[in-house]
């Protein structure tokens, strides 16, 4: 193992203290709807300026990994992803909580996050410099196709009605066009609202579309939020471990997907967990159970999104290109510290980088006990807290969370407007996920398409640019498989029934 001599350096009491504190702070911030991993790191960065670079990195890595895990709490218990990475966790986590298995879902999320985090960190330790080249192979065209791939997944994820899912995704795509265009600078659909110049913010959309409808429904119905079907005693760890062991292939695959997508700058945890979820569903024996409280769904999303942490650090440290939004903040903090990222970081300054990587391992392992304890506490308080207290406190958090995105009241206005829209849409049977995914993927697809076209056009061959690059062809094949898959399974099923 490279740099094993630095393991001891990572194991100092001070570093362990930072790792524990970072994981706790990250988990709590990530659990609050609207407070994302990026924000958690941005708030806590100034405290790391006074400490040595490797310790600062350990603290930031611990916050980051904790926040990504913490996002699962509100996804499971409130149907509101705490961070964009946890969107797909709502698909099965919340139905599990509705069935009374919220504590099991959280323990599963904790196990999956630790495993995913360890896989991501292992790739960072062993294969960082070669893996970083993957990031560079992805040009605008590849991002375009990746986003299109993500959009095709929406269709296969739409539970009740494919048509409603597609309509929702189109609404999301349209929302994504609002504001100043990234390429060209045109102003689109802003009207006279300056609040819309910057476009719709993803975090505001998350809070509005997911959380506000839950709150309105809580007020409108007399039932308690989550029913408690059993005595909350242990962590249900044994049960969770058995489920996780039975799904070891799913965990490995999802962690791998998370690591690779994490390496791609600009993709991040939301796409990683979406891809991992749909892959888990596609190969599952009982795909029809997904979306109704299938533990495998939670395992897939939570292992993949934590694997993006280690994956994202690969281009950040090797190339100086942030793999995920939180990495951009960490990169800025490193610049202030005077650390120059790049291939030489793994050579000349290997002490910093390997001490950090082992620190990330330690923080991830520490997340198991810390996550279980905080998770149980979060579950207990959400189930036992009276509705009259729960609703106003969560409502307060939605305002704080959406304001905190950019310290801007515009985002709060957007959140409330989208929330009311989301509630009306949910009454008509539309779910929030296709809309939010359309918003996220639409902007990626658009900028990839326009830039890919411009580059192709400069070469005089704008069309072949999209269809001749090897990685593009690979993604196109996946898109075709994804689109054909329902047809194939339907035919196979039909054949199976005639044979019998």
């Amino acid at each position, binding site marked *: 193992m490279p740099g094993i001599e630095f393991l001891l350096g990572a194991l100092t009491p001070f570093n362990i203290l930072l790792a524990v504190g970072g994981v706790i702070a990250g988990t709590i911030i990530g659990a609050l709807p609207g407070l994302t991993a990026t924000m958690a790191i941005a708030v806590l960065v100034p405290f790391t300026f006074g400490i040595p670079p490797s310790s600062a990195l350990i603290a930031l890595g611990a916050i980051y990994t904790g926040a990504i895990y913490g996002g699962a709490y509100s996804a499971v218990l409130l149907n509101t992803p705490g961070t964009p990475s946890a969107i797909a966790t709502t698909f099965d986590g919340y139905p599990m909580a509705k069935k009374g298995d919220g504590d099991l879902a959280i323990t599963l999320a904790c196990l999956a996050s630790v495993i995913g985090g360890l896989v991501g960190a292992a790739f960072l330790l062993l294969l960082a410099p070669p893996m970083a080249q993957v990031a560079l192979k992805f040009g605008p065209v590849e991002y375009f196709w990746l986003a299109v791939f993500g959009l095709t997944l929406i269709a296969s994820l739409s539970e009740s009605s494919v048509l409603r899912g597609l309509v929702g995704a189109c609404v999301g795509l349209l929302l994504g066009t609002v504001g100043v265009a990234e390429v060209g600078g045109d*102003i689109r659909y802003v009207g006279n609202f300056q609040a819309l110049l910057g476009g719709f913010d993803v975090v505001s959309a998350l809070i509005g579309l997911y959380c506000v409808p839950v709150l309105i429904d809580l007020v409108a119905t007399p039932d308690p939020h989550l029913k408690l079907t059993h005595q909350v005693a242990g962590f249900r760890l044994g049960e969770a471990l058995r489920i996780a062991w039975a799904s070891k292939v799913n965990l490995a695959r999802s962690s791998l997907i998370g690591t690779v997508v994490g390496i791609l700058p600009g993709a991040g945890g939301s796409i990683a967990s979406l891809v991992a979820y749909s892959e888990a569903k596609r190969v599952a024996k009982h795909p029809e159970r997904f979306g109704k409280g299938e533990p495998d769904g939670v395992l897939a999303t939570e292992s993949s999104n934590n694997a993006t942490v280690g994956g994202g650090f690969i*281009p950040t440290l090797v190339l*100086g290109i942030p793999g995920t939004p939180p990495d951009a903040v960490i990169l800025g903090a490193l610049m202030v510290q005077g650390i120059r990222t*790049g291939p*030489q970081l793994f050579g000349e300054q290997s002490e910093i980088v390997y001490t950090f990587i082992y620190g990330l391992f330690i923080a991830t392992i520490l997340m198991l006990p810390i996550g279980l304890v905080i998770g149980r506490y979060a579950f207990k308080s959400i189930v036992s807290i009276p509705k009259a207290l729960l609703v106003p406190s969560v409502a307060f958090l939605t305002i704080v969370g959406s304001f905190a995105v950019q310290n801007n009241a515009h985002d709060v206005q957007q959140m409330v407007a989208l929330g009311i829209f989301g509630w009306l849409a949910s009454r008509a049977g539309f779910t929030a996920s296709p809309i939010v995914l359309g918003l996220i993927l639409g902007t990626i697809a658009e900028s990839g398409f326009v830039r890919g076209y411009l*580059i192709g056009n400069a070469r005089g061959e704008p069309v072949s640019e999209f269809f001749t690059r090897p990685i593009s062809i690979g993604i196109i094949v996946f898109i075709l498989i994804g689109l054909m898959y329902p047809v194939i399974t339907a035919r196979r099923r039909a054949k199976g029934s005639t044979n019998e």
Partner: protein
Amino acid sequence: MKSIAKTFAGAIALTAATIGIAAAAYPEKTINYIIAFGPGGESDVSARLQEPFFKKYTGQSVAIQYKAGAGGAAAWSQINSVPGDGYTIIGTNLPHIVLQPLQKDVGYKTAEIANVYWFHYTPDAIMVPADSPYKTLKDLIAAAKKAPGTVTFTGSGTNTANHLAQRRFDKLAGMTTTYIPSKGTGESNTALLGKHVSAAFSYSTVGVQLGSQVRCLAVAMDKRHPALPDCPTFKEMGYDLVSGAYRGLAVPNTTPKALQKQVSDLIGKINKDPAFVKSMEDKGFAMVDIGLDQMDAFMAKEQKQTEAIAREMGIMKK
């Protein structure tokens, strides 16, 4: 004799202290330092580098806050609604604060922003991957002239300093290149290192950060940057291009002139601190000192220059 000298020195010290107290009426408490962008960018990094020197020279700290959105316009359009008591300062950027109001109604006008100091800029610089066939700027220009439009430049976004520089340089060199805007320097670095484009019109800071992975062909400064000694200036090669993204500080426009001067002087003092200058230059920033007294002339020139390019690019508000 010795005691006389001592008394004399003491008297000087006392006078200095009294003057010091009079001037130190500002600041008496923490100053809010608003960044119009998210954390981690150049505006944030340079503010973080200034932070300890506020403490050193005033004994007071600054609280750095982020108010991002609409390319900075979200924060700039609100700065004048804050009390002008010297305890709120905001980072401003060029060409942003000139260009944005020219393009559209963004909620503020350039003249309404009370800039007190421009303290540094990140010069535009042309970079190619280390193994690029373009060894010098001449190679690149020759290729662009041979097949107009085929040389592609990425840069930090649409209508940013990089974009304006690319347009100006095309004109100066009499060539045609294609500009592919990226979302920020992170994405333009990917495009550059991944060789999705021929070259990048990026910033000197990027050249320092990416080190040996890239070759800097030219930097838009008067003299070479100390951290990039091998990178020639455009001027050396006969192109009059000195440009980049300037960063400065503004106060609410209700702030009394005398107080504006105090803020300006404080930033100026920090800007002269050798330790601060070194930490900035090591990262590829280039220092400038445009205080309050030179502000009007500087802004007038900047306005004229930016307006001319904006008109040429056809991005002026109708």
